[in-house]
């Protein structure tokens, strides 16, 4: 019975089907809102779903220079890690996996999709992919540092003097003391996290690794058909997971008593976070060079996060 529920959880509710649907929906809302901001009509909101199904129906070409197994398995490994991450996030207050150190597990799981992109890209043997993966690596190093500082600040606040890396404790703390974003010492951390989201998902202006007009989507340049569909799905899933992570860590769950209403409110907040930190930023900025991206994350964003950490350690 437990096995069956776990399988259902992985495949349907917070796992594959639910997360993919919400992720693709968020990507569609992002494109539609962006189009409206540019005075365009824009694609239908379910456009990313059309893209996904169309790519599933395309021929899959494996380049002669590629390592076939690695090339085909990289998107699947990325998808698995993203689905496991979905189970750690309490969607609408429903916890599925929980542990004492799930925030640390999330830090590790967050790196896997980027690593899969690097592995898949390098196995394709294209020079464009080689440029893309070197940039993807730099981007990863750039946002990891501020992300870990933000998590440290949160762990210190919810642990009341000790470091507690547990999402459950974060949720309990927020029920008792209100949303963490209203905690003065954590406001800079929340801003830093909002700035990390676009780099993690790979949207403009931090899409240097997948610059489509410049290096033809970098690591994805040789991909076609189903593996490409999976990579597109993975980036939508990342969009959902990162906004859900922000909601969980800084806003918390709004309990209304009705589970469905809780989930709907949770998704609505995720949608709002997506529009604020991805669509708005995308509409007003151009792509950064990789060295500027690195400098921005290790000075500005890490600086903001450090302010928060110092305030938390000072006991504010």
């Amino acid at each position, binding site marked *: 019975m437990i096995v069956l529920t776990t399988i259902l959880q992985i495949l349907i509710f917070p796992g594959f089907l639910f997360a993919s649907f919400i992720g693709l929906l968020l990507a569609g809302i992002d494109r539609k809102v962006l*189009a409206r901001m540019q005075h365009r009509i824009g*694609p239908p909101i379910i456009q990313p*779903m*059309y893209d996904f199904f169309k790519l599933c129906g395309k021929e899959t070409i494996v380049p002669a220079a590629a390592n076939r197994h690695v090339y085909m398995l990289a998107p699947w490994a990325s998808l698995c890690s993203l689905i496991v991450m979905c189970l750690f996030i309490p969607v609408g207050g429903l916890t599925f996996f929980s542990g004492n150190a799930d925030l640390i597990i999330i830090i590790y799981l967050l790196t896997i999709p980027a690593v899969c992109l690097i592995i898949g890209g390098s196995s394709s043997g294209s020079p464009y992919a080689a440029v893309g993966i070197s940039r993807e690596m730099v981007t990863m190093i750039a946002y990891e540092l501020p992300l870990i500082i933000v998590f440290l600040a949160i762990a210190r606040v919810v642990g009341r003097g000790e470091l507690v890396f547990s999402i459950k404790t974060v949720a309990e703390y927020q029920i008792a003391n209100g949303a963490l974003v209203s905690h003065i010492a954590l406001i800079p951390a929340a801003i830093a996290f909002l700035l990390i989201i676009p780099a993690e998902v790979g949207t403009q202006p931090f899409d240097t690794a997948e610059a489509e007009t410049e290096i033809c989507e970098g690591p994805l340049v040789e991909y076609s*058909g189903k593996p490409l569909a999976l990579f597109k799905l993975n980036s939508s899933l990342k969009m959902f997971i990162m906004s859900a992570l922000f909601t969980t860590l800084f806003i918390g769950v709004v309990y209304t008593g009705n589970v469905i209403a809780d989930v709907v409110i949770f998704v609505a907040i995720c949608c709002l976070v997506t529009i604020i930190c991805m669509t708005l930023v995308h509409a007003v900025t151009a792509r950064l060079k990789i060295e500027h991206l690195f400098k921005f994350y290790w000075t500005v964003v890490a600086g903001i996060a450090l302010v928060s950490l110092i305030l938390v350690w000072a006991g504010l």
Partner: protein
Amino acid sequence: MSVLSKIIADSASKSPWIYHINTGSCNGCDIELVAVLTPRYDAERFGFKLTGSPRHADIVVVSGPITTQSEERLKRTLEQVPEPKCVVSLGSCPQSGNVFKGSYSIEGPLEKYVHVDVTVAGCTPKPEAVIEGLYKAAGILKKKREAMKK
């Protein structure tokens, strides 16, 4: 399974990604194609998207009269596009050679190399005509996908 393949066939016409190759065009048609994607004409409302790699493309838009230099590149690019794919010839040049016809360095027309699904004539075609041609190509993509299944 039939429901899924129907969804895939429907999606094929609703998400056509364009790859543009210039085979010695004077840049007039290229500018008109870009105009189609700007906020004024906004082809993205039909799901059109310009891709950078032929591997991601559904529709290959060819402009220019196919010069000797670009002939080999054109053939190689067309081979790299995964099925189902459509070829659209943009402007009069790939269709007939236009004012360049008879030149020692022109290898066209495009029909010599590949089956052309939609021809948009004009020097240069209006953006409205380009959108109509691309929209027809998207419809052909759906038929090709259905034929591919059988």
